[in-house]
């Protein structure tokens, strides 16, 4: 495909989002950090213009005023895009997804979305200083939606890295992500996928935080510390001799230990506070009541005193050394030791000599001396527990690969026991056996093509979508991950198959955008315009709007 230079300027993405299907409580409401606010990431810093600051929050649902239109048309930096339809999901349960068939003009200034206008008069269009781009034509309907998200990608990581069995929960994928790796370049323009979640590992029982990468002119690290991967299934796993049951138990125990660790940490924090308070008192007392002669020195400057009972290293002058060297060889060592001991003695004696004077001044004011406070026992920092704590605190998603119904059931129990807010069941081959339980628990399900029931047959093309349809009928939020590089290209087609099996189109589009963001712990920031319905086979990506600009695929139709 050749690139057709179409427009320039940086059109940053901002979108107001809404949705129709209900989501479990864990994904709604006040978790502000989970999903971004309505008007989104600005890659070029805070809005500088007054108009940008005043941009209405849910602007897409409300047409811009004629005044704003006039103003924007006169702005050289503004870009108007005309589309036929758009799909804009939101994380708010009550909001309906905007799936509008009317279309209209979307206005951007620089990188920021400004307003939506159903119509721009022809006369105004001709005189406009802003760039006007009509992406609609008769043969195809331009369809705008957020860039699709692959919730389980294999790009930017080497396969040996992913299969490393020595990973721990504390290993972040971000540490070994090779953003300069090639192969992804065609993805946005051929499939509309602009966001990838890259897990830390795929084979180890526990591997660390994944990362969310945005595909733009170059890959951007959107979220270096995303969901935490864990793996129950023994399907192709390495490095562990544990049975499934043991793996689940190990996770349970890890959470228990993490909870204890948290308690210990909290106790330490509390104790430390106490200690600081007491130490202050202690020091204050001895400042007022200096020590009597011969008394043990107060640790006035605890940090500066040497470790072992005030013993200090003492150096010898060259003259002394020369004198020692003159002695017979057998005596040299002893002479040196004697001399050093002697010098050390005098060094210690010096500060002690000053004490009596100072002591005599305050000796009369002494009351009862406070006990010397003891430093509380430190809790050694454990990065693995820290990672688990981020899950327990509801900051990060726990993504657990589980396939058998029993594994999934155990996982749901675990979720309940530890009150885990955010859980993604990855793979979930047998999730169709217990859709209600999953729906009730509020876990997400990530389906990916490698979780096939048997190796002999390529059931990929039907198993995954049939499962997706079934689960979403039971109100389980479903998203898709490719678990491969080549497979990434066919994610939209898999969603189309799910529609064939009874998933609604809205749900299918949400599975590729919103739910995938949820499972990845971050949101992409690009918009994609398809020629026609994104799920139909003859749809092409017309252009991709992302923080770095607008790229045009030059697709036919």
């Amino acid at each position, binding site marked *: 495909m050749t*690139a*057709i*230079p*179409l*427009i*320039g*300027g940086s059109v940053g993405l901002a979108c107001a989002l809404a949705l129709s299907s209900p989501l479990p409580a864990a994904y709604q409401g006040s978790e502000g950090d989970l999903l971004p606010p309505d008007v989104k990431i600005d890659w070029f810093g805070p809005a500088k213009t007054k108009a940008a600051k005043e941009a209405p929050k849910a602007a897409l649902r409300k047409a811009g005023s004629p005044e704003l239109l006039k103003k924007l048309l006169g702005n050289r930096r503004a870009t108007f895009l005309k589309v036929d339809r758009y799909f804009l999901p939101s994380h708010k349960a009550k909001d309906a997804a905007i799936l509008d068939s009317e279309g209209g003009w979307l206005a951007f200034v620089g990188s920021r979305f400004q307003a939506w206008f159903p119509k721009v008069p022809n006369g105004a269009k001709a005189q406009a200083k802003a*760039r006007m781009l009509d992406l609609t034509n008769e043969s195809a309907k331009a369809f705008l939606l957020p860039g699709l998200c692959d919730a389980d990608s294999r790009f930017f990581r080497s396969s040996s890295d992913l299969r490393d069995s020595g990973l721990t929960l504390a290993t972040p994928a971000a540490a070994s992500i090779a*953003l*300069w790796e*090639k192969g992804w*370049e065609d993805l946005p*323009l051929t499939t509309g996928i602009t966001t990838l979640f890259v897990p830390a590992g795929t084979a180890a029982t526990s591997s660390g935080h994944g990362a969310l990468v945005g595909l733009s*002119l*170059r*890959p951007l690290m959107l979220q270096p510390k995303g969901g935490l991967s864990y793996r129950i299934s023994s399907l192709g796993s390495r490095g562990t001799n544990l049975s499934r049951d043991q793996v689940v138990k190990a996770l349970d125990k890890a959470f228990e230990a993490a909870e204890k660790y948290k308690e210990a940490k909290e106790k330490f924090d509390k104790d430390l506070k106490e200690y600081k308070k007491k130490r202050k008192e202690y020091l204050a007392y001895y400042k007022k009541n200096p020590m009597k002669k011969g008394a043990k020195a107060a640790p006035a400057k605890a940090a500066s005193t040497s470790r072992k009972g005030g013993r200090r290293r003492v150096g010898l002058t060259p003259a002394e050394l020369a004198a020692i060297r003159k002695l017979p060889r057998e005596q040299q060592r002893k002479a040196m030791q004697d001399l050093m001991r002697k010098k050390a003695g005098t060094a210690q004696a010096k500060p002690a000599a000053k004490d009596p004077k100072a002591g005599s001044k305050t000796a009369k004011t002494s009351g009862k001396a406070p006990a010397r406070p003891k430093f509380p026992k430190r809790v050694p920092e454990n990065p693995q527990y820290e990672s688990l704590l981020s899950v327990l605190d509801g900051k990060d998603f726990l993504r657990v690969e589980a396939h058998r119904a029993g594994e999934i059931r155990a996982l749901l129990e675990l979720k309940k026991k530890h009150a885990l807010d955010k859980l993604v069941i990855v793979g979930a081959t047998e999730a169709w056996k217990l859709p209600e339980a999953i729906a009730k628990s509020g876990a997400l399900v990530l389906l990916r093509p490698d979780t096939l029931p048997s190796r002999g047959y390529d059931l990929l093309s039907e198993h995954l979508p049939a499962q997706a349809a079934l689960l979403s009928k039971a109100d389980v939020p479903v998203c898709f991950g490719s678990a491969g590089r080549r497979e990434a290209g066919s994610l939209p087609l898999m969603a189309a198959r799910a529609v064939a099996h009874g998933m609604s189109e809205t749900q299918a589009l949400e599975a590729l955008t919103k739910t995938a963001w949820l499972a990845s712990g971050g949101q992409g920031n690009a918009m994609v315009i398809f020629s026609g319905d994104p799920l139909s086979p003859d749809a092409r990506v017309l252009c991709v709007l992302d923080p*770095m*600009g*607008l*790229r*045009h695929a030059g697709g036919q139709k």
Partner: protein
Amino acid sequence: MNPLRKPILPDASAKSLPMIHPHKLALGLALGLTLGLGASLGAQDRLLLKGAKVFTGKGPFQEGLQILVVDGKIQKVGKDLSAENSTVVDVSGKWITPGLVDANTSLGLATTHTNEQSNETTPHIPILDAIDPRAANFKRALGMGVTSAYVSPGGMNVFGGLGVVLKTAGPQLSERIILDKTGLRMTLGAMASSGNRSFRGGNPDSMFYRRPTSRMGVIWEIRSQFYKADAKRASGQGFDPEKDPATRTLIAALDGKLTVRTTARTDQDIRTALRLAEEFGIRIAIDEGTEAYNSLDQIAAAGVPVIASPPSVSQHPDRAERHLDTIKLLADAGVVVAIQTGQGLGALPLIREASFAVRYGLPRERALEAVTSVPAEILGVSDRVGSLKEGLDADIVVWDLNPLSVFSRPESVYVGGKLLHDGKAKKTKKVTSPRRGTPRKTRL
């Protein structure tokens, strides 16, 4: 008499096998027609290269020579040519040589299976069928000034098959062929018998339980095949050349119509090769000839050309011991010597191998001849390539320095008058890292 003037090379009639398949001939004719047609279409293509020092294929570099290219052929090489109607390329200060000719390569052979090993004697099998025309090593060769190459069958059989001389670049494989089915590969030494097994151990079902398994056996295989062919040629009965292309090929060799490219590395193999040539009256060219320094006089006396193994390579098959000055010694002894990069030897680019030979005593002019005009003559394609002469293909390399300098690089390589490698142009390599370049960025 100058050994280079000796009439060792095939005459024009020997260029294609006499018993070629009729439809092949038709194909060749059709090809010729299309080539001619292509040439007439580009009648306006007149190119004048001037200002450079020119090596025409013989002798030293000459100042002030200009080259006029019309329709992909060299029309004239001389001084003060008329630049009328032609594109003038000023290459002042540069060095021009003919496109280099590599007399033994495995370019385009993606597989290691370049021999049909179910039989030790497959003299009629053409290697052309196994050539991937766009293999990357063709491009690499072109980038170092090699415009014509002989692609040889592998050396795992006693009689390996027929090679092909082709251009390293061009639109279609069929148009790149200079001479097909030329040079019968015959391999002496241990390599030809190496796949065969003895009866000790192993699986007796294998087709590899067969002769030869020794050096003597290899030579006997050659002799017996030639005896059989000779007997058939003599009797003329019970032999239909149409049905038995193997024998047909061997008879062509016996008749002296086909050069037998004899791979001989060690001294005993080289002497065997000379003996076989004398015994059967076949016209041979010694391939590799790594230990030729031991039998210089015999080789010179037999008037057999040597396509010498790349001098920079230290490890040679058959445990042949390399001497760095072999090529110089051969040239001094009056042997016609060309330099090859060989098959899978890990050689440097051809021009660097020539520099290597110069480093160990070969005169500069001889070194350049050994990679241009001499291999073209040995291959029987000197009327097409290898020199800058009137009527030859315009395969021209413009070097930035003296080509024998280790820093030299081709600035432009013309194949058939077309600039097919531009060393000055920015590399059109795909962006390997998005850090360096950005794909599909469009801005107004």
